[in-house]
């Protein structure tokens, strides 16, 4: 297996992009990525997208994206793992390069979510749950995570303030990110007084509905060094885990086994422990999600995610910064793009290019991107080589 | 010997008071309450309809009967508010009970009499030996037009009866019908609300048919009003059944358990069957019950039942009517009621 490096990253600013279509966004992010890489050589394309069919009526992205990117005749595939589709696209591109099938593999994550109404978007997102035994009953994603929040509060005494602090922290980071959809600060009070969506989660506990795309170009470490990329950022660990699609079927709903497996596999491959890592980009689709994830990843003990957030452990200047980009919460969550955007942020940090949100001496980072209520999870460990 | 072997009911939890409706239409609630002997009515939740009420009532009936639902050979649901104009409610009820596939079904409609017509058919099928058990349900989520007199009474509920030949809780003594073509109330195809003949619904319709059916069954059985421990007449309001009962020589103790309209409203196909269920909840063994339905159009079915020793043994296996009627009530304001009943609709 060949060592894999990231030689290009490309983002577009996330938001309600009324004037941009799904294809426009994919192409813009990819062109930004080529510019960053200094090459547009592509041997294969992997598109991560959750539900272009329900959101825009367009499937067959494995033709659409190479076509509009001017890369007709390039092998392409579209991968889907709900909100982890972006992470899965990077994983697939990694395998293309590592296996020797492609020397240059492009991973593009995309979601165009604002062509439908909020209710229709909520419906489309709910298809990532068990359609016949969860979504059929009128549960939504905020609803599934709200049940997790309620269970976490009941078991560990997690408070409303602690949940709100996740949003406060991530918005503070988002202010420093030029690609963020919501680059404004929020206070705990604002979060706790925002509109109730699914008790106990309020509007500002939820990541937004977002249009966006992100792209990364992977090649071998040898090739990256030949191109004199400085520093060379490598993907040294990949991990994926899966769990029951329905939350109710898990023996303990607060145990997110898919995340546990994905993190452990990625760290093992990189030969690292979580304590060796400098920062994490995690899937904070809801405030409670970040608390659950930092606990499952072992950044804090079970049940301690809330207090640790209040104590500033995961803040930009804390001992273990989490979501320096602002996370899904402030940066926005175009579902299929989020996993790729996490990689873009990790690369910016490891290159030392993250500007005001730069973490000092960042040498290694981990990304965690999950689908549904934790039915699938993809992790990557990135290091400066 | 054939008769009832199990019964069950379902009443929605929502209610609206006469005052709340009267307030909207500028009517006098005191006069209405006195004139109709009616205080409030049940309102179906947005997730209830004739089929759900029928299934939940039928499940309790099967529970009380203690039978294997797969042995039910016929299912009849009587209603004027079947959720589909074409596609039976009976298939939904049969499937939910686990009675499929060896089961006869067809939906019945005869205004407020469809429930007892189903009971008649079910009893006769068992008597003929055509089926081992037969289920009859009267269920409605009936609607009165906004501001119409019927809006104060049209309510929702279901009563279900499993008929059999063994382990009876109430033996069928006899039945008699009284039916003519009398157009006192109707709803045309595609019309949302029914229309009615106003005062024409009284003398030539309700009163004539109830009286006719009672006289016919008294003649046939040789019984007289005082022979009955209990009696139930169809209850479009709280006034008609009491007027006719008194005129025919029945007294308050005979109808005290079965008269539900003052706090339930008129559950149409479920009305007199619900009164029968409430009476079975209280009656002792070896007591005689007279049940007379009325359906506009118009007709009445009269039944004489005699309770058995088994009745007190099974009635606590499912909730009683009084408990469903008097507990866990939630009162609605007219706005919420209008939304629940789809009297106001969001644009498509």
């Amino acid at each position, binding site marked *: 297996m060949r060592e894999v490096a990231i030689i290009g990253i490309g983002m577009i600013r996330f938001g309600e992009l009324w004037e941009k279509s799904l294809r426009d966004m994919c192409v813009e992010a990819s062109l930004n990525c080529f510019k960053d890489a200094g090459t547009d050589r592509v041997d294969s394309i992997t598109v991560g997208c959750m539900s272009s069919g329900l959101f825009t009526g367009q499937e067959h992205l494995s033709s659409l994206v190479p076509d509009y990117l001017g890369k007709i005749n390039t092998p392409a595939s579209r991968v889907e793992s709900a909100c982890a589709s972006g992470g899965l696209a990077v994983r697939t591109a990694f395998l293309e390069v590592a296996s020797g099938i492609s020397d240059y593999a492009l991973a593009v994550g995309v979601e165009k979510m604002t062509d439908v109404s909020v209710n229709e978007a*909520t419906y489309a997102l709910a298809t990532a749950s068990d359609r*016949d035994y969860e979504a059929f009953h009128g549960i939504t994603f905020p*609803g599934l995570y*709200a049940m997790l929040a309620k269970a976490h509060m009941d078991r560990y005494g997690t408070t409303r303030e602690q949940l709100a602090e996740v949003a406060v922290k991530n918005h503070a980071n988002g202010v420093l990110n030029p690609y963020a959809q919501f680059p404004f600060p929020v206070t705990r009070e604002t979060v706790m007084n925002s509109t109730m969506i699914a008790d106990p989660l309020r509007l500002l506990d939820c990541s937004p509905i977002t249009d966006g795309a992100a792209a990364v170009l992977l090649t071998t470490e040898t090739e990256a060094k030949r191109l004199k990329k400085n520093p060379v950022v490598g993907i040294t660990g990949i991990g994926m885990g899966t769990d029951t699609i329905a939350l109710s079927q898990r023996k303990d709903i607060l145990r997110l086994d898919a995340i546990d497996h994905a993190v452990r596999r990625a760290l093992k491959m990189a030969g690292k422990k979580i304590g060796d890592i400098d920062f994490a980009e995690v899937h904070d689709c809801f405030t409670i999600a970040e608390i659950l994830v930092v606990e499952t990843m072992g950044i804090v003990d079970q049940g301690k995610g809330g207090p640790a957030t209040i104590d500033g452990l995961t803040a930009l200047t804390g001992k273990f910064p989490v979501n320096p980009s602002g996370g899904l919460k402030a940066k926005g969550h175009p579902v299929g793009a989020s996993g790729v955007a996490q990689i873009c942020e990790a690369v910016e940090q490891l290159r030392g290019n993250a500007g005001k949100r730069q973490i000092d001496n960042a040498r290694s980072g981990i990304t965690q991107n999950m689908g549904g209520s934790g039915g699938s999870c993809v992790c990557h460990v990135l290091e400066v080589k | 010997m054939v008769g009832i072997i199990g019964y069950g009911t379902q009443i929605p939890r929502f209610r609206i008071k006469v005052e709340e409706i009267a307030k909207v239409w500028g009517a006098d609630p005191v006069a209405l309450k006195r004139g109709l002997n009616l205080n409030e009515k049940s309102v179906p*939740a*947005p997730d209830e309809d004739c089929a759900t009420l029928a299934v939940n009532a039928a499940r309790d009936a099967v529970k009380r009967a203690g039978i294997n639902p797969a042995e039910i050979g016929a299912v009849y649901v009587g209603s004027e508010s079947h959720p589909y104009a074409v596609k039976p409610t009976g298939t939904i009820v049969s499937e939910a009970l686990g009675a499929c596939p060896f089961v006869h079904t067809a939906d019945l409609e005869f205004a407020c009499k469809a429930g007892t017509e189903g009971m008649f058919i079910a009893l006769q099928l068992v008597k003929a030996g055509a089926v081992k058990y037969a289920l009859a349900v009267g269920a409605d989520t009936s609607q009165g037009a906004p501001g119409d007199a019927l809006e104060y009474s049209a309510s929702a509920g279901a009563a279900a009866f499993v008929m059999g030949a063994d382990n009876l809780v109430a033996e069928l003594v006899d039945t008699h019908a009284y039916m003519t073509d009398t157009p006192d109330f109707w709803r045309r195809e595609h019309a949302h609300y029914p229309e009615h003949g106003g005062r024409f619904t009284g003398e030539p319709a309700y009163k004539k048919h109830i009286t006719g059916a009672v006289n016919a069954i008294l003649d046939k059985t040789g019984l007289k009003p005082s022979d009955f421990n209990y009696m139930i007449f169809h209850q479009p309001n709280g006034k008609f059944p009491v007027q006719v009962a008194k005129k025919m020589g029945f007294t308050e103790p005979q109808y005290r358990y079965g008269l539900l309209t003052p706090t339930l409203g008129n559950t149409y196909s479920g009305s007199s069957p619900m009164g029968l269920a409430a009476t079975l909840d209280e009656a002792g063994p070896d007591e005689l019950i007279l049940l007379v339905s009325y359906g506009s159009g118009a007709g009445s079915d009269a039944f004489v039942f005699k309770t058995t020793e088994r009745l007190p043994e099974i009635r606590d296996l499912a909730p009683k009517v009084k408990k469903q009627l008097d507990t866990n009530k939630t009162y609605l304001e007219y706005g919420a009621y209008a939304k629940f009943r789809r009297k106001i609709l969001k644009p498509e």
Partner: protein
Amino acid sequence: MNVPKHWRESPQRYRMEAGKCRKCERIFFPGRLVCPECGHTGFDMVKLSGKGKLHTFTVIRTAPSGFTDFAPYAVGIVELDEGIRILGQITDCDPDSLQTGDRLTSKFRRMNDEGKTGMIMYSYKFVPDNGI
């Protein structure tokens, strides 16, 4: 038009039929073809009691398409007396007075429909187990 899809699920939605592994005796709802615990592929049909207690829940205030007329409504994970958990709506209650641990029982209710002229979907929902 999702008629076949909904019709196919009616044993589960109308009668709460579950699968019980013949080898390890664990119950799964909905039924499965392979036991995730022991790998066995033989199952018996069992009907769930529909009775249990509320494990966790939420109140949906922003509802998806098809449910907006019902909001706010409660959805919870219910731990049935058989020892398995299932997700369902909790109806006939004041959503704000629900508590974890509340005893619930199932009822047959309307879920939604495919528009004014389309198919009506029915299913189990849970209600507080207050004896009615």
